Every structure is written in C-alpha cells, then in structure tokens.
C-alpha cells in the first residue's frame, strides 16, 4: 500500500442565480404594497380591518437578504416606506424565492403558504392575523374569479364595488410595474 494519499481535487459549485424570479418577485412585491396603499383608502373591508390597529411597521421579504418591501400603518391608511426599518413590528419572510413566487402570483393561498412553513413570521400573532386578512382583501380585488377558487377557502362574494376597484388597480399596475423595475429593495 502506498503511504501517500492521492491529492483530492475539490469541485467548485456555485448557486445558479435566479435573476428572473427574483426580479419578478421584487416587482410584484412593489405592485402589491403600492396597490395596498391605494386600496386602504377605498376598500371598506381593509378600512374596517385596520381602523382599530395601532400604528405599526411591517416588513415583507424573501429571506433576510432577498427582495423586500416595507409598509407602515399610520393614521387611517397604509403607506409605502422606501428606507429600511429597524425592528419592524411584523416581519413576514418567505423562506426562498421559489416559495414566494406562487404565493405572490395567486397560485397558492397565504394560509397554505403558512401551513407549508413557506413563510416565517416574527412579531405578535394577533397583528399578523389582521395583516393576513388585509392581504386577502387585496388578493380578492386584484385576482380574478378563476384564481380565487384556488386561494380562498370560501370565495369572496361578488360585488360591483370590488370590480370597480379592480379596474382602477389594473390601470395603476402599469406604472407601478415600470417603477417596480427601478425600485431598489434594500
């Protein structure tokens, strides 16, 4: 037996960059919170949900370093925050971009994302429950009926008001999409 060990050559593997998915998730997150800001002024369900809420900050992020957006509930509405927030009251982290993708595109419900541990929550549970209901109200406006069967346990009742809000939201989504491309998520 030779007493020398053959020199091992270690192979180098680098993770594949998911530029497209990450970029798209960043844009969708941006559109979502910009729409949320507008809808918080008009939609009665959202207004009712947040009326008894104290002011607070919320972070939505894909793991700790991925695309992220921040909003704050202040006064009667919800605002988008550009700058980073230290210790937000609620942090909702998608574990990776692959699990954020179907949830943000309306292919998976928020409840299902939680039940599959795709999302990690930090903060007070009661606050998070209200925020989840607010996001579901946003989804009920943004996503058309055929997608709603998949994301709601009980499909929201039809309302003309919601159809009107959807039309406005879709028109606004075009500039938000362009702005989302240039949005720098910190």
């Amino acid at each position, binding site marked *: 037996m030779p007493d020398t060990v053959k020199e091992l050559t270690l192979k180098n593997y680098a993770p594949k960059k998911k530029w497209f998915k990450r970029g798209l998730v960043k844009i969708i997150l941006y559109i979502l919170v910009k729409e949320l800001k507008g809808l918080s002024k008009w939609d009665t369900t959202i207004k009712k949900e947040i009326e008894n809420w104290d002011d607070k900050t919320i972070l939505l992020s894909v793991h700790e370093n991925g695309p992220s957006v921040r909003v704050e509930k202040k006064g009667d509405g919800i605002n988008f925050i550009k700058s980073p927030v230290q210790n937000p009251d609620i942090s909702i982290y998608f574990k990776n971009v692959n699990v954020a993708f179907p949830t943000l595109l309306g292919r998976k419900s928020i409840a299902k994302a*939680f039940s599959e541990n795709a999302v990690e929550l930090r*903060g*007070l549970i009661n606050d998070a429950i209200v925020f989840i209901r607010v996001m579901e109200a946003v989804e009920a406006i943004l996503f058309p009926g055929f997608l709603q069967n998949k994301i709601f346990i009980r499909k929201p009742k039809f309302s003309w008001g919601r159809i009107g809000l959807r039309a406005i939201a879709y028109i606004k989504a075009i500039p938000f999409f362009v702005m989302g491309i240039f949005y720098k998520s910190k």
Partner: protein
Amino acid sequence: MRYPEYYEFFSPIKIVAGKKAVGNLAFELRALNSEKPLIITDKGVSNAGLIQKAVNSFDNTNLRPAGVYDDVPQDSSVRVVNKIASIYREKKCDALIAIGGGSVLDTAKGVNILVSEDSNDLMKFTGVNRLEHPLRPYIAIPTTAGTGSEVTSAAVIANPEKNIKMGFTSPFLYPNTAILDPEMTLTLPPKLTSATGMDALTHAVEAYTCLQKNPVSDSYAMISAKLILENIEKATEKGNDRYIRFLMLNGATLAGIAFSNALVGAVHAIAHALGGVCHIPHGIANSIMLPVVMGYNINKSAKLYSEMYRFIYPNDKTVTKDEEGAKHLIEKIRNVSFNLHKLCGLPRSLKEAGVSKDKLEEVAQASINDGSIVLNPEKVTYEDSLSMLNKAFE
C-alpha cells in the same frame, strides 16, 4: 387521504415514559450537564408530595436542587416569571425542572427565556420566533394529561398589568426532556382529569383536520385520539388506576407533538377568546366547543372525521359513508362530554360554564384575531364564530 405537497416536522424532545420514570430524573439532569437545577411547581403538586418523589431520584448522587419554587398560580403570570428568574440567578442555577400542569410548564418556559437571554423584560420576546439562541436545559414533568406543553414550542403567560395573555412560539422553547410518570398524575381530581383530557382530545382532532396537517403529525394525532377517547371516562372514574393514567399521559403527549407541528383551528381560537374574555378554563372551553366546531367544519372535514372514527372504532361496520362516520365521531365526543358531566360535573354548555350571553359578541370578535383561526379547514368570520357560540350556549 390527500397529503400535502410539502411539510416540515420537528420534535426534538427526549421522552422518558413509564412506571417510576421520574426515578430517572437525576440521570437525565446529568445527561444535560446540570448540577444545580431549580424546581418550579405549584402548591397542589407540592402538597400532594410529588416533589419529594422527584427529589428522591437524587439519592446517592452529588446532585441537589438549588431550591423549589412552589407558588405558581393557576394562570402563569409575568410577575411570577420575573420573581423565579431572579431566584434562578441568585442561586446560580444551571437548569430548570417544571413539575405540574400547563401553567407551571409554561411559567418555566418564560423563566428560561429570561435567564437564557439575560433579560428582565419578557414582553420583548412575545410573539413568534423572537428568540435567537438555544435556552438553558429544561426538563418537564407533567402532572396532568392535557396541555402537551412538555412537548410543544409554545407558552402562554398572563400580563395582569396590561390585562393580556402573551403568547410565545419558538423552536428554542421545546423542553430537552419530558418525563411521563403515571404516578405523578394519580392525585389529579376528576374534574381536572376530564377537562385536561378533553383539551388533549381537541389537540388531536384539530391537528388531524387543520390545514397544516401532515403524514407524521397525523400518525401522532390518530393514536392520541384513540388513547384519549378510550380512556378519558375510565381515568375520571378510576383516578388511581396507574395504567389508565399512563395511557392518558401518552395520549396527551402524542397530541402535543401532533399539534405543535400541525397547529390547531377554530376550537382553540374560540377557547382562547373564552379564556380571555370570560375566564373559562381552557380545557372546559375546548370540551364545549369541540363538537360544535366539528359540526361547522363537517363539509370540509367529513372524510377526515370519518377516517378517525373508523380507526378508533374498527368494529363498527355500519358506517359506509364519510358523512355517517363524521356524524358518529361528533356524536361519540358529545356522549363522552355528557358522561363526564354525570361523572364529575364537567360543563356541557357555555351557560353551565358560567358564561354570560352578553359577552358572546366580544368573544366572537376576539376569536377571529386569534392565530389558530387561520389554519381552520373552513373559513370563520365574526358572524360564523358568533353563531357557533350561540349554539354552544345552551
């Protein structure tokens, strides 16, 4: 059975179970590298002589408890947690042993947060995933077969100053070891035996039917439901039967592991609200609400209830359709609850439990903001919750 596309399961607790299991306490402490543990308990447990049984395991070792704190109240509170944490620091302890029911076990979890994070402000850690480091060694010895806190990653501690119940959830909150010794549950009175047992049954049923269920938690939930349904009346009637007590302990612990991973649903959401608004004991609230919420969920969960029924009662060949099996299971649970009422006076309705009807709207509102509501198989709105509460009232 439809399985989830993806799931996670975590249960890092060593279980030491059986006759005279508490005799291994010293050995388990040494395995955790502890020499000076602090024992936390309540007056009932200490007066029943159960602490002495645990301490007897230290004979012929150089281990000695640094002290025994036996004044934990029925609802664990932040004041008590702070007080015990200062004793822990003063006595330079290196581990915690909790001997008692859910309140004692949760108090110990709160103490462990403070002493491990070197903090005096428990409020800072309330909520989900607020802890970032592993905690000090902690051994849980339940004296009830109910909460399952000995195997869960959660704790509830009252903050009387703010009049709120603070919830804590973190993977670091799991005890290191759970010691299940039937001897430690023999002195539990019939009414507490039945109420805590119904709490455990609710954990099993909800873990098996809520949205976060998975094949591993299902296995725990199914066996635990069988153990509890077959033994809860016997344990209430013959409290000194060690074997029956051991089966109930196993049922509660398995249910605890199941729901710690699959979580719970609307029964717990409403029971938490009934506890907060009307101060109804958790087990009693669960016992009253369980059949009512099962009836509400039946459209979404008939198949699962039926599977559970057929597993527990395999000799009943009359059930051919899922809906029949589901109705049979609800009926069985209702009958158990009625029998427990006859045996020990366990309330069957919210009215019997002392709830005032004018509080139901407040309870319904609180229930829909509870974390457990999200994973219920059927959507629950304020109106739905109120309607269930009205059904459970009389």
